[in-house]
């Protein structure tokens, strides 16, 4: 049950109030980066490599430069003069802005053309002649580690192989000992495929450098405007572009999902060209460029093992990962965590022994390793543990629900220390799964399945009971390029009691303009409709690390509550002064302070704020403003219990999701309508890699599905009618008990779907299929089992 402490008029936490931002979006008045048009603006387009690995012998721009309206063609050699041809990645690797001699993946930026309009720039791009000397690329990450594999990163002095890093966590020896003596061991090899976020808006920018004032305004599609400003200052500071001279504006963003965290070469080239020409430069990538060149997600090859007793008690897990990072490690992770938060992969289960290790390699593919609506590699980890859990239940001959119930961490055992070092804050896993089973009618479904199996029909039921880890993060462990991962809120309340609140995060559709206002409304009693929320302008907003990894509510949402509480403390002092009583004699209810035992003697928050400007107590600072930079004491651990029912056609192997019930626990709920919307969207983004999406490369490194014609984003037809609900287990350490939710369903849905499909096919002895599970993949698997013939 969601309970509300404030009236609907105030609109604090728990109210499903309609979103403020929708008013402009439904009338076509959103302002996205491609809507920005500045006087004298030039347009940039990018020449890209047709080869996955090649030496550039010659670039001839002479024909392009003859086209009227073409201003310049920029190559790596041009950027090299300003030392701008390489840039750092978020993982302290290096990435080419434009190559001087070698291209490392198909669709890599090779040169930029600048023209007075979009069409002329495209003409010029076609007219640039590049002579390449193709080389044999390294595409398979396993082959990249073979001794005779060519060393790809010859730019790195002394580099003799394609290995990037090794990471491990847990107790290797203890884990091996448990595995040696365990009753039952199961093992699965899984590939979590390379996928792409495909926000419906692609990436782009307008770089506007003002030579007279030596000032850059950068309008861009970024989820982390402040961090980007710092990165630009680090990259271009030597040209006099220091941080106070840079303003990054992130306007309305048409979806992010992690793909708008990195710094892409296009942004840097646009800045360089604007810097050199003194004119605004717009760069908006095509969808195909976006799919082929921007950061990918996932691409983890995992060997996962579980050991258990014959009675069904999990004893240990062991994961080994090979991570394909493409030609540079441009993942978006906190500095200390090269595999992100993969170590959450011990799951929702109570055991004390685990070991995980990962190795990353370079290949001739685009760089990345960003989220896809997932908190730092949690999806990969959760897929592994939840698939493995089903395999173990099957090996033991136990029902997968019963097996989970038997092994869940009990709610009274929180905070719970995981064998990989995390302290789970709270959870009630039994309650979540019980609710999901009741809603879907689990026992009846199992009976129906047994009947269908007798008739030879393929029906499957899949469960996923996941634990997420979000809200990065506590400064002792979490930073990006050294900047601690706090987040911030600044509240100013105007004399008439209306407020503006600014944040270091940046909504890409999450609804911050509404939900942050609700948090402040909850704490101060000022109606949410009178609290204007602003983000995305580095000149006005306090510094923060941005919005990704479901961190906005855990960090900036907490900052809003704490800043508002600072103001409430001030309000109490002013109220005591106005009512001529001591502070201890006052009681608070949302929107006013009143004298204990004399509720008619009260001052509303509006009275108090007005007094802060007109009649504040002697010695007190005037005004009504507060700022807070929130450094979370721990991460938050949302969880969920999902059950999926599928029917598979025996002739065509078409997979139909009959029902999907998702019970999420994201702690206290700020706006149930928004939370539900996030869950719906995340579920469809979980369905996508489970059944449809994968970026596929051939052995020459050519991308085979680099457009939306053949990279299959689910439509309303593929997406089932989601049935969603919740349990509420507040986070004990978060100021408002909230945990974050945006990514939980993307994390939890793929294993529920995969488990359902494998469950249907288990009658043929199938224990695992890699996602995306397609009819063709089922056909191949059944052929391999000898169930069907060619």
């Amino acid at each position, binding site marked *: 049950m969601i309970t509300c402490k404030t009236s609907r008029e105030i609109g604090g936490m728990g109210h499903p109030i*309609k*979103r403020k*931002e*929708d008013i*402009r*979006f*439904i*009338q*076509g008045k*959103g*302002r*996205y980066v*491609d*809507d920005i*048009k500045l006087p004298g603006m030039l347009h940039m387009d990018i020449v890209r490599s047709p080869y996955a690995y090649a030496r550039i012998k010659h670039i001839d721009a002479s024909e392009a430069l003859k086209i009227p309206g073409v201003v310049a063609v920029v190559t790596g050699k041009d950027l090299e003069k300003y030392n701008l041809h390489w840039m750092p990645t978020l993982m302290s690797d290096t990435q080419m802005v434009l190559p001087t001699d070698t291209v490392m993946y198909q669709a890599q930026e090779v040169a930029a053309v600048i023209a007075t309009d*979009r*069409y002329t720039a495209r003409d010029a791009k076609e007219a640039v002649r590049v002579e390449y000397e193709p080389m044999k690329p390294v595409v398979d990450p396993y082959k990249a580690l073979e001794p005779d594999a060519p060393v790809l990163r010859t730019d790195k002095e002394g580099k003799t192989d394609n290995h990037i890093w090794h990471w491990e966590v847990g107790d290797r020896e203890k884990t091996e000992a448990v595995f040696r003596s365990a009753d039952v061991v199961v093992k699965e090899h899984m590939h979590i495929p390379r996928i792409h*976020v*495909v*926000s*419906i*808006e692609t990436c782009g920018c307008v770089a506007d450098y003002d030579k007279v004032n030596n000032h850059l305004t950068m309008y861009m599609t970024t989820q982390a405007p402040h961090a980007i400003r710092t990165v630009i200052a680090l990259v271009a500071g030597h040209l006099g572009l220091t941080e106070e001279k840079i303003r990054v504006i992130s306007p*309305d*963003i*048409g*979806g992010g*999902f992690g793909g708008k965290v990195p710094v892409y070469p296009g942004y840097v080239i646009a800045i360089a060209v604007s810097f050199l020409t003194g004119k605004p430069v717009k760069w908006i990538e*095509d*969808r195909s460029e976006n799919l082929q060149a921007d950061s990918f997600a996932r691409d983890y090859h995992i060997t996962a093992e579980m050991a258990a007793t014959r009675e069904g008690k999990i004893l240990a897990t062991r994961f080994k990962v090979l991570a394909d990072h493409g030609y540079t490690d441009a993942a978006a992770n906190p500095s200390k965590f090269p595999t992100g938060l993969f170590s959450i992969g011990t799951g929702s289960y109570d055991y004390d022994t685990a070991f995980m290790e990962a190795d990353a390699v370079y290949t001739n593919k685009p760089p990345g390793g960003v989220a896809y609506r997932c908190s730092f590699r949690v999806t990969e980890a959760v897929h592994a543990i939840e698939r493995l859990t089903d395999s173990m239940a099957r090996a033991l001959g136990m029902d997968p629900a019963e097996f989970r119930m038997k092994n869940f961490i009990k709610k009274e055992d929180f905070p719970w220390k995981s064998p990989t070092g995390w302290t789970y804050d709270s959870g009630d896993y039994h309650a979540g799964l019980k609710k999901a089973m009741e*809603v879907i009618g689990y026992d009846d479904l199992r009976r129906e399945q047994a009947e269908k199996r007798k008739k030879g029909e393929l029906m499957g039921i899949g469960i996923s009971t996941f634990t997420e880890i979000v809200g990065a993060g506590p400064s002792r462990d979490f930073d990006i390029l050294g900047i601690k991962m706090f987040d911030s809120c600044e509240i100013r309340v105007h004399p008439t009691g209306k407020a503006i609140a600014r944040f270091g995060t940046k909504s*890409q*559709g999450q*609804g911050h303009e509404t939900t942050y206002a609700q948090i402040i409304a909850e704490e101060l009693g000022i109606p949410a409709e009178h609290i204007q929320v602003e983000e995305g302008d580095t000149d006005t907003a306090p510094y923060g690390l941005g919005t990704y990894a479901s961190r906005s509510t855990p960090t900036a949402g907490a900052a809003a509550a704490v800043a508002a509480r600072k103001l409430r403390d001030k309000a109490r002092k002013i109220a005591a002064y106005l009512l001529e009583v001591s502070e201890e004699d006052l009681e608070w209810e949302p929107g006013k302070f009143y004298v204990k035992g004399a509720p008619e003697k009260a001052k509303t928050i509006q009275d108090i704020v007005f007094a802060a400007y007109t009649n504040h107590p002697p010695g007190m600072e005037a005004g009504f403003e507060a700022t807070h930079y929130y450094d979370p004491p721990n991460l938050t651990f949302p969880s969920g219990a999902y059950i999926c029912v599928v029917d598979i056609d025996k002739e065509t192997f078409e997979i139909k999701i009959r029902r999907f*019930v998702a*019970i999420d626990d994201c702690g206290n709920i700020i706006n*149930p*309508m*928004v939370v*539900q*919307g996030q*869950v*719906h*969207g*995340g*579920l*469809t*983004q979980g369905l996508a890699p489970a059944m449809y999406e994968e970026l596929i490369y051939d052995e020459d490194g050519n991308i085979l599905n680099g*457009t*939306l*014609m053949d990279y299959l*984003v689910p*439509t*309303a*037809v593929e*997406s089932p*009618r*989601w*049935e*969603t*609900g919740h349990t509420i287990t507040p986070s004990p350490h978060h100021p408002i008990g909230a945990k974050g939710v945006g990514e939980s369903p993307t994390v939890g849905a793929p294993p529920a779907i995969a488990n359902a499909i494998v469950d249907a096919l288990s009658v043929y002895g199938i224990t695992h299929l890699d996602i995306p599970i397609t009819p063709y993949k089922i056909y191949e698997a059944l052929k391999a089992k000898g169930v069907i013939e060619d």
Partner: protein
Amino acid sequence: MTRDITVTINGEQHTVAVEPRLLLVHLIREKLNLTGTHIGCDTSSCGACTVLINGKSAKSCTILAVQADGASITTIEGVGTPEALHPLQEGFRECHGLHCGFCTPGMIMRAMELLEKNPNPTEEEIRWGIAGNLCRCTGYNNIVKAIQYAAAKLRGEETPSTEPEFV
């Protein structure tokens, strides 16, 4: 080389000199500065650029401006007013049918024609009806609800509850 064309957009007539290769979406966005119509792909797959051409929904990235010579075009800016939103606009807000808002204008324009032709569509018909428009944020449940809400309102019936329903 340009050619003069005349189009009526949201009731206003414009005569514009355009290159024959200019896409209609670029005419709308860049020459007429109506930026509510968005571009989300280069293969006519996403539907973010959907507008009405003589009452029929069409992806404006797939049509040359010269092909629209003489046509009457409606974009999102021509739908409803701030004081009197169209039932679809209202439905999308009431039912939380949008998150980032980028696909929303195209969805609304597509749904306009859908409801024009079929004032009382089933859920299945709505889902197939918007299958040419991609949304990456919402998972479509609430877009379907928004269109059902608008359909009821356009038929003059009571609109369904817009409170979120939980299992």
